[in-house]
């Protein structure tokens, strides 16, 4: 089952990668929306601490983050251990673990662009919408999201692309188990290590070309529906 010179195991890894990137980006967007909104509008002191915390996952090397996550999510960690005691199983070496890991690591790429977009939007459009009978959810959908589209797009693209290429965290907490936690980046790495450069190049090229085509389509769509300028 080799196609385009890419073996079956690699196809599975690719599929896993895109699934992971989609799921964690979607979850991140949903979770970070309220956080970014709060950060954009609060005047509380604690805000700066939260802002700093959000950026922290970037500071440590991914493998090290992965290492600490492994401890946390594994059977002896605070999270994994609790799950085990509750009769569930721990999260290390599972797809769920990968999702958590890549979400934590992509957190800043989602929160910050959203926060910026919300701040740039100001309160006025929301006020107008409220005087026109739009309730909070309605305002979110009809005003906030469209007006912060550029920020959403940046958040989604950075998080998605970053998850595609993420390696250290995923390898550490996933273990690179084929079909379960071996994502494309690990597969490529593995090929390079095994001096199977041809496979590595093919897989890299496929990943790059796919991502490039996706991105071009997304940006073209975005441009198509772009508002030419901000109302003065």
């Amino acid at each position, binding site marked *: 089952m080799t196609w385009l010179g890419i073996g079956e195991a690699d196809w599975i890894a690719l599929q896993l990668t895109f699934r992971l990137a989609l799921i964690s980006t979607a979850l991140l967007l949903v979770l970070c929306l309220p956080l970014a909104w709060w950060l954009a509008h609060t005047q509380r002191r604690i805000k700066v601490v939260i802002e700093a915390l959000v950026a922290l996952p970037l500071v440590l090397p991914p493998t090290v983050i992965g290492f600490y996550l492994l401890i946390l999510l594994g059977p002896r960690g605070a999270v994994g251990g609790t799950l085990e005691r509750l009769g569930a199983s721990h999260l290390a070496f599972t797809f769920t673990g990968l999702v958590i890991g890549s979400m934590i690591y992509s957190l800043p790429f989602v929160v910050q662009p959203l926060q910026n977009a919300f701040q740039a939007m100001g309160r006025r459009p929301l006020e107008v*919408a409220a*005087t*026109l*009978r739009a309730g909070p959810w309605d305002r979110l959908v009809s005003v906030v999201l*469209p007006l912060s589209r550029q920020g959403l797009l940046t958040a989604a693209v950075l998080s998605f692309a970053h998850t595609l290429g993420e390696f250290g965290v995923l390898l550490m907490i996933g273990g690179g188990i084929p079909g379960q936690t071996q994502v494309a980046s690990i597969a490529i790495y593995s090929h390079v290590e095994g001096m199977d450069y041809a496979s590595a190049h093919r897989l890299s090229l496929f990943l790059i070309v796919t991502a490039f085509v996706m991105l071009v389509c997304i940006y073209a769509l975005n441009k198509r529906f772009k508002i030419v300028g*901000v109302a*003065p």
Partner: protein
Amino acid sequence: MSLACEFRLARGDFALDARMTLPERGVTALFGRSGSGKTTLLRCLAGLERAEGWLTVNGCRWQDDERFLPVHRRPLGYVFQEASLFPHLRVRDNLRYGYRRVPVARRRVDFDETVRLLGVEALLERYPQALSGGQRQRVAIARALLASPRLLLMDEPMASLDATSKAEILPYLERLHDHLEIPVVYVSHALDEVARLADHMVLLEAGRVLATGPLHELLTRSDLPLAHADNAAAVLEAQVLDYDAGRQLVTLGCGDVRLRVSREQAPSSQRLRLSIRASDVAISLSQARDSSVLNCLPVRIAEIDDDPHPGHRLVRLALGDQALLARIPREAVERLALVPGMAVHAQVRARALT
């Protein structure tokens, strides 16, 4: 009593401390100098500012110490001082934004009619960025009206409109407020506009209500700044007696006195409102017969006051139980030896408003 409120709010040095009661329907003009707190007060009414105090509209408590009806639950229309259109929506969708959110049964404003009367039909497919300043403002007015509001708040809605556009929109607003029977709070610096639209008036100064009452009373009170304004005017309520379609003239009765005013169509109601600018009233001792001025009314001088205009005095004239203002050169006051109590004739150029 239909709208009553009391608000206290501080913003830096500025403090709003306003209490007022507005009539059930009709337009209330909110008047005051730049920075006196008009916008702030409107925002409190809309619930956009969380001021201390309370607000009752049509018997419903919208706000007090315990309650605070959120903005989107208040059935109001708000025209912001800056047009504030949604930049991501075409004009059509800006207009439909509020319209769609009102249940069909509660819609009281027709989409196409409003669009036509505000002259924005040709703009429906544009984005707000492709509109001129005045076009944006008209869209914003239409958008607020299309939300079928039960309280209309308008913050200088016509500031950047040309005279012709204003002349087109004003009658529509008048009809609308007759038709909707809702209270309207209208901020404007144009006394003409206010005299035409408003029944009631609230005067703000540095965040406090200086005076409130029927428009015609406030306009001529010499203790208030309005009577001393450049375009000070009196408003008279008069009985319709006759309409001469050929000459387009209405004959009106104001107490014992008869007045004639030009008007395109026969008045639809029995009463008509007239605006008479202080600068449109001249005083003569005898009744001039060969003048083009339509009305030469017997009046009595009630009060002669100072006028900020150089070389002028402000004369309050009693016409039955109503008041007129006349801005007269000092020279004429001397020449004609005018004193309070004297019976004179007022040469009046009146304008029908409603």
